[in-house]
């Protein structure tokens, strides 16, 4: 069996044969085919199963509105569920399989649901499965969930890459049918920057599927010529295989270009898809229209499809879906299907036309005043039952039926800003509302202009008005001649038959009965109806069914359609791969990496790194023989406290603050005072948020009378800078203050420990003795003539300095420090050892700076000067925030030094019930102090300053730890600070 349904004509390349498979069956097609057209050419009508009833389903449309022919495309990790066969471009080697069926497509066990349809009405599940209560999670829901969904993901990482980009244009034209092409030609010829985007791989829209001409050419040939000219215009960008997904504010559109989906595998380096963000000054929706069906019993069988699709398969793809076909249409457009197929030699058994009046088609059995009321054929259509104008029923043997209930303008994108479509009685359809996205207009069938002539005319007119608005010189070309026939539509939504089901939403199995039940239960507002019946919730987003459902509800309530309501669409226009929306940001590229100046050196040393924001910092540096991280960290801590340790602290934010008001400015943004700080000195600063909570901390140095450098925490560097700019520009706009970040400009290392000075003396050119550079001193120095900065500050509690050189010398400096440090058995320590030492010293860090704590909580209440106004000072004085029994920072040590302790444990009084009322506080940070030979922790404890020396329990229910602890000062070592000043 090879393509037995091919007939003459079409825009396929018959000189080349493509091999593909469906459910394991090897088949052939041609370039230009979609998977759907190729399957139909091979006489395969059954392609899928519906969601709820597992009804056999075939192709319903010839475009992206397809509800039924959904397949899993491609094998392995590239498996792509729910792919519409109607838009999947055929390529050599394509593999597809049917989905939502078991064990196979022809015999699907869950088609039992179809037999039980009397129970599975709209919303039945809301009324049952409630008893007994535990059965929901244990029994009912697992069964429902197992049956859920359509296609499946492979669970393997997507092997393809995705890209993103940004485009700018004067005019974005959505859709390259007659209206879009005419608009693009008009605008492009005038020199405007135009993007013409179309979801199809072949531009031309309906012109590719129709036999009528434009001017004296076939429509498709006219389209090809226009495209040829457009391609020569430098300001026009043609984007086929590109779907405009959404209209966002101020002329921003998202679009996905399917770069490689027509290939088995993307070419090397090429993305599978590209997400474009398009900035458009103006836009025209020329997205055409979507045909809608008429509901009648068993209108969902494979072989029944939209009339326009039936003739598209014949005209564009050279496929006759059936040998004996019929057409059921309430409008003249549907008649074209019968005429086109008849002209191609297909046996047109009858045209069933509910309209009583009007001319009869020549040479075709044209049944006026008739409707289709039932069909037969388990896995594919075999016959239809027609109710004739005289009321009698007649059964006709047919294998394909084209149905046309009219055309709905594709106004989807015009309602993305929640503009409501407007009912147009002339064409019996909704058209775009006037309050759509500013700058977006519609042309052609999308605007309700249904003839080809009207499409060309409105496309041109809309483009001209855009050109005028944007100030482009333009001319009005004479339009080529094109058909301008009216639809002559007789509204008909539902052709009642007997007691059977008539489908409205094919994928979700919403039938006329469901709409009736929704009405009976007072779910009559459009939103209630949709949500109750699931109408329009399927992957086709109701493109073919929504208006039908609305019209039926209108009939039931006795209201007009516009009175009943409208339905708006949300982005995206068609479902879009999440990979495309993510673009390049995945895996290691999820976020940029920031590397420290010592990174390359540390990597050579086999360091373990840790993510700190976007930074990678050295966590610890294992030495040969060390098998656990604790061994390395303990060594780093002990060696630092004993002799000297080196740590890269470049990641801390550094902000240069200059200007004659710099000191006064700092007094406003810090809770404590900086204007009095002498030049050449540093001071620890505490920064509050306006709500009085601690925002950030760090040391700030005065380098010159009008020049300070502020240090922030790594985590808050960006937020602090933003805040300072707010204070500078918005609160005190006349202060003479200039800000610039210098975080990246300096490689900065902490050198800490009793031998820190001795080590640095070997490196720094200047005198850095205690006299020359006392505790909290700072200044410019040189290293072998190289400009450098030194700050005598300490986070570890040891005699310590931070030494900074221009970043490009950072690698050289760490190597130099290590080399010179060898004499002192210096170590390089990472963030773990840093954390241990700061906890030992009782310094707050990220775990304590949690945004929920005051200076008072941290034991730093005295730093908040109330003699001056500063950010956060006023609100920090609220009653609960200065309460005496509030949280205070304390130290915690287990009474038994071998006992376990963990951060996040809560503190309870000994003997107290473990309930919230007795919750005393919690352990914020916990480390093993090799120095003390014990686990130690910092904690926020209610009235903690009054509880020093008391015993409490540190309870962690997660690890079942309940440890007796002693509350101590948070400064575990050197509370007097002798070491600092050493």
């Amino acid at each position, binding site marked *: 069996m090879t393509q037995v349904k091919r007939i003459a004509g079409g825009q396929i390349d018959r000189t080349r044969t493509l091999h593909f498979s469906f459910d394991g069956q090897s088949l052939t097609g041609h370039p230009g085919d979609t998977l759907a057209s190729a399957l139909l050419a091979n006489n395969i009508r059954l392609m899928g199963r519906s969601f709820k009833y597992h009804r056999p389903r075939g192709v319903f449309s010839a475009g992206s509105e397809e509800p039924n022919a959904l397949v899993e495309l491609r094998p392995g990790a590239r498996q792509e569920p729910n792919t519409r066969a109607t838009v999947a471009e055929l390529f050599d080697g394509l593999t597809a399989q049917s989905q939502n069926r078991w064990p196979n497509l022809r015999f699907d066990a869950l088609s039992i649901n179809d037999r039980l349809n009397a129970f599975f009405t709209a919303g039945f599940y809301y009324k049952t499965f409630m008893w007994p209560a535990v059965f929901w999670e244990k029994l009912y829901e697992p069964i429902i969930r197992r049956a859920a969904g359509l296609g499946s993901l492979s669970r393997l990482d997507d092997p393809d890459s995705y890209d993103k980009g940004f485009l700018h244009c004067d005019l974005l034209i959505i859709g390259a049918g007659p209206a879009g092409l005419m608009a693009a030609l008009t605008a492009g010829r005038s020199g405007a920057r135009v993007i013409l985007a179309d979801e199809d791989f072949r531009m031309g829209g309906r012109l590719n599927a129709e036999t009528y001409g434009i001017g004296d050419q076939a429509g498709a040939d006219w389209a090809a010529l226009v495209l040829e000219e457009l391609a020569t215009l430098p300001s026009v960008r043609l984007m086929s295989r590109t779907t405009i997904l959404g209209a*966002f*504010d*101020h*002329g*921003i559109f998202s679009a996905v270009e399917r770069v490689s989906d027509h290939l088995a595998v993307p070419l090397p380096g090429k993305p599978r898809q590209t997400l474009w963000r398009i*900035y458009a000054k103006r836009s025209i929706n020329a997205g055409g229209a979507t045909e809608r069906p008429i509901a009648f019993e068993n209108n969902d069988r494979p072989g029944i499809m939209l009339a326009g699709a039936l003739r598209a398969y014949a005209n564009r793809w050279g496929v006759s879906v059936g040998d004996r076909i019929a057409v059921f249409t309430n409008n003249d457009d549907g008649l074209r299907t019968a005429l086109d197929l008849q002209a191609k030699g297909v046996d047109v058994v009858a045209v069933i036309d509910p309209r009583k009046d009007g001319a009869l088609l020549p040479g075709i059995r044209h049944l006026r005043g008739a409707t289709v009321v039932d069909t037969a054929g388990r896995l594919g259509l075999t016959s239809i039952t027609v109710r004739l104008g005289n009321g009698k029923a007649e059964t006709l043997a047919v294998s394909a039926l084209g149905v046309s209930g009219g055309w709905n303008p594709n106004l989807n994108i015009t309602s993305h*800003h929640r503009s409501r479509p407007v009912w147009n009685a002339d064409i019996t359809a909704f058209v775009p509302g006037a309050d759509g996205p*500013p700058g977006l207009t519609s042309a052609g069938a999308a605007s309700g202009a249904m003839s080809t002539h009207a499409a060309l005319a409105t496309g041109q007119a809309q483009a001209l008005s855009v050109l005028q608005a944007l100030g482009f010189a333009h001319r009005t070309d004479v339009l080529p001649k094109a058909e301008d026939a009216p639809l002559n539509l007789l509204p008909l939504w539902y052709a009642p038959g007997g007691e059977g089901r008539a489908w409205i939403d094919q994928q979700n199995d919403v039938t006329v009965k469901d709409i009736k039940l929704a009405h009976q239960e007072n779910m009559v507002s459009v939103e209630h109806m949709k949500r109750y019946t699931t109408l329009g919730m399927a992957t086709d987003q109701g493109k073919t069914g929504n208006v039908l459902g609305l019209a039926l509800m209108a009939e039931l309530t006795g209201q007009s359609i516009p009175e009943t309501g409208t339905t708006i669409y949300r982005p995206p226009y068609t479902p879009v791969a999440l990979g495309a929306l993510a673009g390049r940001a995945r895996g290691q590229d999820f976020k940029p990496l920031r590397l420290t100046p010592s990174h390359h050196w540390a990597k050579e040393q086999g360091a373990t790194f840790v993510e700190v924001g976007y930074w990678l910092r050295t966590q610890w540096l294992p030495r040969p023989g060390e098998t656990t991280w604790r061994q390395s960290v303990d060594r780093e801590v002990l060696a630092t406290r004993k002799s000297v340790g080196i740590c890269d602290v470049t990641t801390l934010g550094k902000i240069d603050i200059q200007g004659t*008001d710099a000191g*006064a400015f700092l007094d406003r943004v810090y809770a404590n005072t900086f204007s009095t700080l002498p030049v050449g000195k540093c001071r620890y600063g505490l920064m509050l948020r*306006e*709500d009085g909570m601690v925002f950030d901390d760090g040391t700030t140095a005065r380098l010159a009378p009008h020049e300070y450098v502020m240090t922030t925490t790594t985590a808050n560097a*960006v937020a602090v800078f*933003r805040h300072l*700019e*707010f204070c500078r*520009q*918005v*609160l*005190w*706009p*006349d*202060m003479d203050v200039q800000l610039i970040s210098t975080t990246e400009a300096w490689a900065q290392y902490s050198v800490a420990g009793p031998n820190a000075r001795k080590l640095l003396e070997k490196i720094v050119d200047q005198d850095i003795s205690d006299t020359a550079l006392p505790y909290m001193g700072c200044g410019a120095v040189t290293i072998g003539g190289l400009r450098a900065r030194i700050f005598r500050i300490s986070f570890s509690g040891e005699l310590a300095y931070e030494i900074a050189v221009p970043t490009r010398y950072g690698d050289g400096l760490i190597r130099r420090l290590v080399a010179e440090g060898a004499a002192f058995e210096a170590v390089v320590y990472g963030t773990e050892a840093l954390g241990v030492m700061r906890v030992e010293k009782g310094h707050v860090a990220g775990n304590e700076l949690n945004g929920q704590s005051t200076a008072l909580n941290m034991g730093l209440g005295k730093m908040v000067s109330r003699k*001056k*106004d*500063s950010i956060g*000072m*006023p*609100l920090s004085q*609220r009653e609960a925030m200065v309460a005496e029994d509030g949280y205070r920072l304390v130290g915690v040590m287990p009474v038994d030094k071998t006992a376990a302790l963990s951060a996040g444990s809560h503190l309870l009084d000994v003997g107290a019930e473990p309930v919230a009322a007795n919750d005393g506080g919690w352990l914020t940070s916990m480390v093993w102090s090799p120095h003390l030979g014990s686990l130690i922790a910092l904690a926020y404890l209610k009235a903690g300053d009054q509880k020093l020396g008391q015993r409490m329990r540190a309870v962690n229910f997660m690890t079942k730890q309940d440890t007796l602890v002693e509350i101590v000062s948070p400064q575990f070592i050197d509370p007097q600070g002798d070491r600092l000043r050493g």
Partner: protein
Amino acid sequence: MIINHPLLGPRDAQEFIYLGDASLIARPDGLTASPQAFLDYAYQRTNPAGLHRELWYHEQGDRSWLVVTRNTVTHEITLVELARDVARREGRSK
């Protein structure tokens, strides 16, 4: 959204960080203001459905704070000014 920056022209709003109502410009003096005045400043918002003057910061741009007048129902932006100019106009100085 697009914010028409007074110095740089149209820029994608994604480059900006939003703070909130431009009433945050009018920070009371912390030493003299009543507690209620400070509470109102920090916590109470008009939150209009319609025109809203609001503070945006061009974080991935020139670091200017802007006062943007935007309709919160339609997102239409009708005016963009440098916040520093607005602040001075509203009497803020040092």
